[in-house]
């Protein structure tokens, strides 16, 4: 493995707004799991983050997931770690980091879900408002 040290950038004091866009169902492909890994790593960099669930991505945080018959790992409890990171960021005055967990209203309603069906506490946001928020981001990563 090559030496990482010569590839470091000076990011001292950089604070950006990241948005992570989850738009696919949790187990049909690997995107949901790997974007979750991305979100968790980003916490160490203390950047602002909006974790967004749209389209079938809403199913990623639905309560009561059972993957036993699929032979896949049920990783939905890990979303609670995001909620904990958000909580820590909200409570700790020394951490200058705002995390938001957002579900697009239209996607949620089209799937017959409401916020009580979800494993984490979310902000429910209309597509139009989410679009405006997306436009304000510095970095938008998806999967």
């Amino acid at each position, binding site marked *: 493995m090559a030496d990482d040290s010569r590839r470091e950038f000076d990011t001292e004091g950089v604070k950006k707004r990241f948005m992570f866009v989850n738009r696919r169902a949790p187990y049909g492909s690997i995107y949901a799991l790997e974007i979750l890994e991305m979100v968790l790593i980003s916490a160490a960099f203390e950047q602002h983050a909006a974790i967004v669930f749209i389209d079938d991505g809403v199913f990623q945080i639905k309560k009561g997931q059972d993957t036993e018959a699929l032979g896949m790992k049920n990783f939905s409890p890990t979303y609670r770690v995001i909620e904990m990171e958000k909580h820590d960021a909200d409570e700790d005055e020394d951490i200058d980091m705002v995390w938001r967990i957002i579900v697009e209203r239209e996607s949620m309603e089209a799937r017959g879900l409401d916020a009580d069906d979800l494993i984490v506490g979310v902000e429910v946001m209309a597509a139009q408002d989410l679009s405006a928020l997306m436009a304000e981001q510095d970095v938008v990563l*998806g999967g």
Partner: protein
Amino acid sequence: MKFGIVVNEGPFTHQASDSAYLFTKAALEKGHQVMRVFFYYDGVNNGNKLSSPQADDRNLVKLWGDLAAEHKVDLVICVAAALRRGIKDEILAEGFRISGLGQLIEASMAADRTLVFGD
């Protein structure tokens, strides 16, 4: 302009790697800076030196490696995604290195724009 590039799909199945390569090459030739190209999801397959496309087709793995050699572009394969897919140092193509997801976040912090090529 300082660009960060993210490639989310492997070579050939999707056009994402071609588009990312062509963009990166064009940006460098125009004098822009590419801080890092980060390969995630199936994108890690772009660094598999065992890839052997037919002779009359483009060889994306080699094209990326040539670009790295010519312009000193930092091509980083995500370690967690790579191990899942059997991409290890033993089969890592010239010009690539394996490192962590933090390299993606860091490059995005350092770049003016982060461009994602995926499906």
